[in-house]
């Protein structure tokens, strides 16, 4: 080939590259050239919009954007833009969205609420209560307190069957107490039968329930029973004297008093975490008779021992423990330790984004745990020394919203010396209140992978956007039978409840069914 031709091609393409490449990179970074504006190059931002369902029209002010959702509105100069999203048969959505230079404002996913929500009655017959087995696909529906009045509903298949068989020896008993573990299809019940008390273990499987009489494994009435969500064996029962018994269902054996006295305990896979009476937290792996101290901190010990009552330990990950106290306190085993002094009724963990949904009777908040866990592990472990008071943390309540913490100045000094990786020490920066006009909030759930919150306030169910750019006004969805609970299954996108009028098991579609399969792709890397 002619050298001239080759050289010409080479230099032309080189020139093209040298000119085009920087321009493209600047464009990617958010710089555009606006003629007529000095100095010509301006930084822009964008709005990323995706809706469920997709295909909605987008209006920026009065102008309709060419593309439908999901879409990216690019080349926006910084400032506020009134955004309106419209989809047929759905209620419109509108907000003023603020665009920052070189930043993307993600409005994803936006749940467009249908004008006629899809509600279904799932079972005939009225029920008195609904017991959702959190983390599983099963719901227990009860009519009265007798096991024969119970129905198991499988939200995955839509099938239902009696809780106990017709020839079960437990028929006629009264359910006094039941225990379940998040994510486990195993249910433990204590029944009061004429002349005796029985313990019934129920494993919910597809289309049937396998029941086992565990009475002889509980010679004494336990205060609390827990098991691993992965396998319901062994069980760990907390006796009245504060000792933990390990109960092996397969061999029907009891290993009494393996640890104690404890103030509370929790499980993570096969590792047992126990809050001891002396205020220390120990952990023990399954099959290992030795336990190690996870933390012994003077502040935590004081909080644990001064409080009267049982603590509930929730292990979010290995060595990451939350302590929920009898007065609604919420503590963690890493600084700043104190997350709430009182009144927390419950919480739900968003593993994907490392956030905690907490609620009080009148308020809902989001606690960003991810900042908490960034604190160096070594620092937390060093707090085992009870004489080390340098990391003492002081508490200060702020009325009903007791999420604030003040930090000892010595800690603040040591943190400054540690450098920029230090975790923010005030829990104010960890929490965000999204709603505080509740009356009697009983349950709350993360929905749509943490982008929405469903909660039950008295007898009404509300849907709330969790994103930080919202104004926190929830949408009321429906009313439920007074005193009953609700259940939400992320897998089906349905909310299950007992109808306020008919008391029948019903469901309302929260996430459009055809959008369910799109969920992971829509929600990847979505920013709050």
């Amino acid at each position, binding site marked *: *080939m002619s050298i001239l031709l080759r050289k010409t091609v080479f230099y032309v393409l080189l020139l093209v590259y040298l000119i085009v490449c920087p321009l493209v*990179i600047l*464009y*990617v970074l958010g710089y555009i050239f606006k003629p007529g504006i000095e100095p010509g190059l301006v930084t822009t931002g964008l709005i990323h919009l995706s809706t469920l369902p997709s295909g909605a029209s987008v209006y920026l002010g009065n102008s309709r954007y060419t593309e439908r959702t999901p879409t990216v509105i690019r080349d926006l100069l910084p400032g506020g833009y009134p955004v309106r999203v419209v989809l047929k048969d759905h209620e419109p959505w509108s907000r003023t969205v603020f665009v920052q230079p*070189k930043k993307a404002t993600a409005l994803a996913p936006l749940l467009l609420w249908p004008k006629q929500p899809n509600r279904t009655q799932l079972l005939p017959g009225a029920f008195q209560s609904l017991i959702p087995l959190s983390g599983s696909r099963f719901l227990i529906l009860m009519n009265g307190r007798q096991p024969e009045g119970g129905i198991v509903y499988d939200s995955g298949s839509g099938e239902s069957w009696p809780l106990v068989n017709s020839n079960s020896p437990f028929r006629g008993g009264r359910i006094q107490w039941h225990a379940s573990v998040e994510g486990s299809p195993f249910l433990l019940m204590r029944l009061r039968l004429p002349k005796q008390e029985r313990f019934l273990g129920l494993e919910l499987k597809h289309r049937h329930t396998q029941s086992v009489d565990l009475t002889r494994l509980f010679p004494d009435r336990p205060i609390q029973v827990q098991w691993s969500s992965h396998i319901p064996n062994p069980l760990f029962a907390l006796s009245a004297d504060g000792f933990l018994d390990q109960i092996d269902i397969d061999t029907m054996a009891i290993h009494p008093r393996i640890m104690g006295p404890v103030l509370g305990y929790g499980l993570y896979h096969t590792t047992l975490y126990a809050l001891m009476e002396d205020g220390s937290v120990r952990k023990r792996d399954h099959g290992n008779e030795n336990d190690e101290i996870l933390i012994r901190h003077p502040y935590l010990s004081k909080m644990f021992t001064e409080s009267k009552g049982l603590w509930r330990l929730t292990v979010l990950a290995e060595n990451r423990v939350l302590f929920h106290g009898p007065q609604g306190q919420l503590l963690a085993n890493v600084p700043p330790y104190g997350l709430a002094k009182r009144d927390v009724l419950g919480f739900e963990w968003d593993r994907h984004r490392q956030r905690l949904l907490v609620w009080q009777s009148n308020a809902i908040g989001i606690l960003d745990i991810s900042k908490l866990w960034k604190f160096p592990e070594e620092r937390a472990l060093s707090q085992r020394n009870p004489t080390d008071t340098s990391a003492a943390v002081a508490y200060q309540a702020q009325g009903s919203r007791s999420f604030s913490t003040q930090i000892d100045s010595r800690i603040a000094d040591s943190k400054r010396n540690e450098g920029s990786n230090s975790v923010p020490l005030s829990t104010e920066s960890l929490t965000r209140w999204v709603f505080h006009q509740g009356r009697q909030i009983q349950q709350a759930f993360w929905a749509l992978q943490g982008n929405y919150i469903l909660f039950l306030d008295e007898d009404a169910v509300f849907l709330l956007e969790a994103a930080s750019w919202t104004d926190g006004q929830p949408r009321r969805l429906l009313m439920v039978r007074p005193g009953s609970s609700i259940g939400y299954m992320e897998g089906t996108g349905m909310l299950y409840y007992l109808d306020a009028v008919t008391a029948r098991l019903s469901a309302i579609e929260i996430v459009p069914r055809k959008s369910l399969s799109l969920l992971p792709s829509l929600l990847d890397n979505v920013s709050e």
Partner: protein
Amino acid sequence: MPFSFSGQGLTGSERLKQRFFEMAPGATSWAILLGTLSLSFGKPLLAAVGIIAFDLYWLLRLLSMTLFLVLSYLKLSRDRTVDWAARIRDLDQHIERLRHSQQPDPSSKNCPLLPEASILQPLWSPKGQACGTDNFSPPKESRNCLGIFDCRFWIFDWKPPVQSKIDNRQSTISPALLNRSSKPTGPMPSAVGPMAGLRHGRLPASSSEIYHLVIIPIAKERREMYEPGVRRLIQQPFPSSQFLVVLAVEGRASSAVQADAYAVRQQYQDHFFDCLVVVHPDAVPGETRVKGANITHAAKAAALYLSGRDISFDRVIVSCFDADTVVSPQYFGCLTYSFMLCPDRTQVSFQPIPVYHNNIWEVPGFARVLDVGASFFQLIEATHPEQLVTFSSHSMSFKALVEVGYWPVDIISDDSAIFWKAFIHYEGNYRVVPMYVTVSMDVAASHSWLQTVVNVYRQKRRWAWGVENFPIVMRAFLRSCSISRIKRLQHAWKLFDDHVAWATWPFLLGVLGWLPALCAGREFSDSVAFYMAPRVTFAIFHLASIGFLTTSLLSLLLLPSPAVKRPWLRKTIHMAEWLLVPVITIFLSAVPALDAQTRLMLGKRLEFWVTDKQRRSPGSDAG
């Protein structure tokens, strides 16, 4: 320059340099891949920007390569129609005249050697003036004075009039100059110029004095594999009586294989000048089990044979093929012609375009796409002859082969190694001339799909093992003072860049390029770049589809028609097979290349693996 082209038996600083350069390509490839990976996690914004810059660079390279691929293919398709025999005849006539003429008559229009700009300028006269002899009948397709080059060469090889005049002043043709067999002076012409051979005074032998030594190495192949190639030699327009065919059989081959070779020899011997069977003994000290050892042994035997018959090596062209190679019917015509016309013919290799048409329609789609891609790569390489390196089946002057010491006997990539060996030996005065004729070989297929994958992988890894030349070449370059620095830098960079790109580009384009978006933390996912980078990347890939579309269309033109009922359907499916390229290039191109480079980096060696080839049809006339 005296230099041992081997990486074995080194000591001291040479050993250190050898190891350093052995590690360089692999270390660079891994650094690029792992660096991009870690940057995607650690600094996703920086990674995204870097990947955009790379994608743009790749796009422009792709468009450039596509352009030259098209031009090269056009040249290939046109050269297919050339009557090389006629051209050789014409050239023979002119050579004969030159030998017998006393002095060229400047006023004679019949003399093609008039040092006039008009001759060396557009070789194609718009008026079609032929200035040959009265008996000269230029081929129909050519119109210039020698009837040798037509307008195509005017496009590709034409020199502007000013340059031609300068050339004229520098090289006035005279009989004395013509008969002088000195080495060419001055810079080498970059291509086989129309008058270069004659102008520089090295009068070639006539075609009747030229011999072709064809070496066919046989390790375990039965006669069905190589017999079609032997038959094709008989069908060449060049007289087969001037072929010396050597069947180079490995001593460790089975008795059936050896018996086949003797049977073929007996059957075809009479068609050739001679047909020899040379058995290469096994486990010769200093050799490793490589093809180069076998063909070197055969070449030495041929040298003895030729010397015994007083055949001068500078009139012998050696062609080393694979056992499955079937040359195109025009191959030896084009080769002879190019050899005759080349001014530095004893310091040149001749590189055809390798195609894999023997069983192309019998193999799975991924193998087909890969090997068509290999052919395309060679077509593109042919457009840059200054940096062309020999690959696979090719030809060269036997004199040069002997002078440089034959092929390396301990290197797997003997096809490229011989070029470097010669390049170093002749201190940079060695080059490759592309020939736009094809040699057809088999795709490395097997009886099952999975085994075909394995075979293709191993073959590509063996090709990529050509990186073993890099440390040897670099050591030679460091030592050399006579090879110009620019040339050394160009060749070294190309060798290095080609191998690193081979191992890394498919990963960067197909996998790593998407990582910043997939692994983005919140900080990056909040940025404009997080959303814009994939869009820009998609736009780049859309533009790149021009190249892909062109490539897939060209592949339809290049491939022979399948012997099926509906060939158009088969070809349409083949077009769709090109969509597999992103996946295929990762697993069956980049991974084998990375494998080879990593082995070299870690000081491991690759055993020579005889490609297992299976062909359903008994013998293809492909090419």
